[in-house]
């Protein structure tokens, strides 16, 4: 293989090389430093004389005396069942002292788009045990649902709780977790790794770690390696895979850095104009395929710079993902865990996974009514701040109290509290709704009210003489 010593320019992560043979776009490159160290890169631009190489590692140490070899192939990743239980670097090299991965297959990491015609509709309810998710923002298998958070908020705890508790009630199918960290701190790494080890989750997990002090450009490949692994596990080995990507904000920063080094015309707030398309090539790699047993469900975490949901990173993400779970600083300050603000949160696939035969027939309406009631109560808080509680009508006072109750009982729960959808979450919802006048429950039809409203249930129980548990008997237990 020919080695060129024709580096003409180095700028940030980019290396410009003059060459004579044709080199393909996206081909893999080895850069050999004078001291023998080999660094990996990828062709970004290619013309008759010049090639632009994006180096995955730091360009420190690369100089005009370094050699460049074009490997004649695009990035292919070795994948295999043995990856389960392994910890790999952000570029896929073993980091746990274990052996190299023996490949069952080598796959292109770019990942082709799933043909929409081949997709199957996700409709299987995943119970996370968290009421604000299961009850009001339900997750289904094959969905991509990110957590929009802010720095210093407990998004990692939430993600871990979900990874621990997530299950399809009644199912015993094989599952796996693929975890990819991009630019997280050592401390965060410990938090994740300890939890994985403590709970035995590591056995079913493949971990990719790109830490804060690892090269930023490596972050561009890390999520793609993770998703390639996930697709292999799901669509060739029949696993139900939960992919956790954290922190997508660091990924986007790396993207911006490369854009700047290429002197591209920047888009909104300095991020590349193609960031939507680029993010889509990550987020869209989730779903179910007709005739395949496995699934890829994506849970990515991103921290909103300045808690601003209109910032390009959460904004473009929200346009691609199937909803979002928003973590709120205000609820966190009030000491509520998990501080999930349901109002801006959304699960778009919720309707597919809930209802009769899946969760319960009243699920949708209870959720809508909880939303409406909470939104109204939260609005009234603003009014109370101006006119005082006394100026409120009786009806308004009830809504105000409802909002407090909702946060305290429905939102708040323990780190290890795993609530069942019907008995815990939905019945709790009814219990809270019962504090509102019945005619205010306009989102719920008569039939449902008569079947599920605690007042009627109690009556029914009394009439039949049994002492079956009514909703008001249920308390959230462990805190």
């Amino acid at each position, binding site marked *: 293989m020919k080695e060129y010593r024709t580096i003409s320019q180095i700028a940030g992560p980019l290396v410009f090389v003059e060459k004579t043979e044709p080199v393909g776009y996206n081909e893999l490159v080895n850069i050999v430093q004078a001291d023998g160290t080999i660094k990996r890169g990828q062709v970004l631009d290619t013309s008759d004389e010049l090639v632009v190489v994006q180096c995955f590692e730091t360009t420190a140490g690369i100089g005009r005396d370094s050699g460049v070899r074009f490997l004649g192939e695009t990035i292919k990743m070795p994948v295999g069942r043995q990856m389960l239980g392994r910890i790999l670097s952000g570029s896929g090299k073993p980091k746990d002292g274990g052996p190299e991965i023996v490949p069952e297959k080598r796959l292109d990491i770019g990942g082709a788009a799933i043909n929409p*015609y081949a997709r199957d509709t996700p409709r299987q309810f995943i119970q996370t045990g968290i009421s604000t998710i299961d009850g009001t923002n339900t997750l289904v298998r094959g969905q991509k649902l990110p957590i929009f958070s802010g720095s210093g908020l407990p998004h990692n705890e939430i993600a871990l709780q979900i990874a621990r508790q997530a299950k399809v009630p009644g199912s015993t199918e094989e599952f796996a977790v693929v975890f990819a960290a991009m630019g997280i701190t050592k401390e965060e790494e410990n938090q994740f790794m300890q939890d994985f080890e403590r709970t035995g989750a590591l056995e079913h997990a493949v971990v990719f770690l790109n830490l804060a002090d690892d090269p930023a450009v490596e972050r561009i490949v890390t999520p793609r390696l993770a998703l390639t692994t996930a697709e292999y596990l799901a669509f060739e080995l029949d696993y139900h895979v939960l992919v956790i990507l954290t922190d997508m904000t660091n990924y986007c920063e790396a993207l911006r850095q490369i854009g700047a080094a290429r002197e591209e015309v920047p888009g909104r707030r300095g991020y590349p104009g193609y960031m939507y398309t680029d993010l889509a090539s990550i987020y869209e790699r989730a779903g179910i395929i007709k005739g395949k047993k496995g699934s890829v469900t994506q849970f990515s975490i991103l921290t909103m710079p300045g808690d601003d949901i209109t910032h390009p990173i959460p904004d473009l993400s929200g346009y691609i993902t199937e909803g979002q779970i928003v973590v709120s600083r205000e609820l966190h300050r009030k000491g509520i865990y998990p501080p999930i603000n349901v109002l801006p949160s959304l699960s778009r696939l919720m309707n597919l996974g809930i209802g009769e035969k899946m969760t319960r027939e009243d699920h949708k309406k209870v959720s809508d009514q909880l939303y409406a009631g909470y939104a109204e109560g939260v609005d009234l808080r*603003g009014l109370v701040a*101006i006119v005082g509680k006394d*100026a409120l009508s009786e009806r308004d006072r009830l809504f105000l109290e409802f909002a407090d109750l909702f946060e305290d009982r429905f939102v708040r729960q323990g780190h290890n509290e795993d609530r069942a959808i019907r008995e815990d979450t939905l019945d709790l919802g009814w219990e809270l709704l019962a504090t509102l006048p019945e005619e205010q429950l306009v989102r719920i039809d008569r039939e449902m009210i008569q079947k599920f409203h605690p007042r009627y249930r109690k009556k029914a129980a009394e009439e039949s003489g049994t002492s079956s548990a009514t909703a008001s008997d249920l308390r959230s237990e462990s805190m």
Partner: protein
Amino acid sequence: MVTAVDLDAHMYDVVKVGHEQLMGEVIKIQGENIIIQVYEDTAGIRPGEPVENTGLSLAVELGPGLLTSIYDGIQRPLEVLVEKMGDFIERGVTAPGLSHEKKWEFVPVKKAGDTVGPGTIIGEVQETNIVHRIMVPPNLKGGVIREIRTGSFTVEETVCVLEDGTELTMMQKWPVRVPRPVTEKKNPDIPLITGQRILDGLFPIAKGGTAAIPGPFGSGKTVTQQALAKWSDAEIVVYIGCGERGNEMTEVLTEFPELEDPRTGKPLMERTVLIANTSNMPVAAREASVYTGITIAEYFRDMGYDVSLMADSTSRWAEAMREISSRLEEMPGEEGYPAYLAARLSEFYERAGRVETLNQDMGSVTVIGAVSPPGGDFSEPVTQNTLRIVKVFWALDAKLAQRRHFPAINWLNSYSLYLDSLHDWYDENVNPEWNRIRAWAMEVLQKESELQEIVQLVGSDALPEEEQVTIEVARLIREVFLQQNAFDPVDTYCSMAKQYDMLKAIKTYADRASAAQRAGVLTSQIVAIKAKNDLPQVKFEKDYNVLLEKIYAQMEAEFTALKEA
């Protein structure tokens, strides 16, 4: 993007790039350099590989077989692609838009000796429950028919021969970037009935009209577009998923075949053509998808059909233009979009319209575009340039969506410029009272928003008695009439008659309330009338008249009792 040299090419010619023959389009010619936008991923393509010019511009195949199909942005049938290359979209595979093998039963409507011109309908094919009318392509000059055949043919076989020897098949090709000709554009004066109360009731769109639905993520663009695709009384629906989610298209694919047209009882899928170029499919094909869709829509219009086209989302289309333009290193305009953004948008919406076809029939293309403004900020270029063109604006509102008021269309910011031209239609076809009641409802909502400002300062108890009733009536209009659950089997579609009945019931309460007030009844008692509590339930009842009568009777009784007390 690929640059070719030594290629004899014209702008927008379709070319085949490299050993894998990837499809691309010439988008810039600079001296010797021909710049090509490739519709597929270009990883691994090396300088020196061959480029071949087809000499044709990007065109779609039009003929029997379009309905129920799902295509990518350049009309490759996704179903065929699954057969050819599996579950993932690999590159270098081509497939014709129409099946060239399938045979269709052709029934002529013209006979030998008849004279036909461009656009003349010469025969029919029962494609689904829809009759596909076969036309002389608009770019042929026509003539006298020498022979016309009856029977089973593929789309490539000749069904008709003219005296000058011209052979006609059931398929025509049309370049997507060129509008198909019509005899004359007419004024749109018939509403497109959508079954969505806030749209039909407050902000209607006309057949052949244009509308935009801008909104931040999660506010309901897709759900609204899909509701329109399902329930609007168009005869043909073209739905373009442009740079959006794969799962959304799958949802349409699984859901539509199970749904029935509420008017004809026929499966909705049979009138639908889907274009799906999801966000992770190549950007160049995304740019083309909108043209592919509108060309198919125009083709059905030319048969004399009312077609409606949904484009979700035009912002992703604009972004595709921006990505391509920035790779060409063109001088960027506002926010990096190319300077020709406004022109492209208006050219696209200009292809909508109610027309007299070349065959002298009436047909229409209604265009409804979703817009996804960054950060939900309507002042950005795509929203602004779109609003300058379209006649109907349905403004989605994150605040409403957050409290699950759906459809989250803001009734204060939205507008329809078709109200005047549709006035008579409503008079004749719904109820002579309709236009008045509609105006009344808008007034109440307007008034409520003014009152809300006062309430925010002093609390609701401080409002004058009369205004407290207004607040209650406005609440009913919002919660009963405007809110509509797209996922409830009954509420998802609301006929014009039901819309009228619902609004009329609210108005009756309002009228009775002010009469009672004048007679000295306490406001708190008026607001406490129980009969109206059942109004929301009307939405979910199929045979709602029984319930509505009960409500009227109870309302009557309650008001009478109040007056007597």
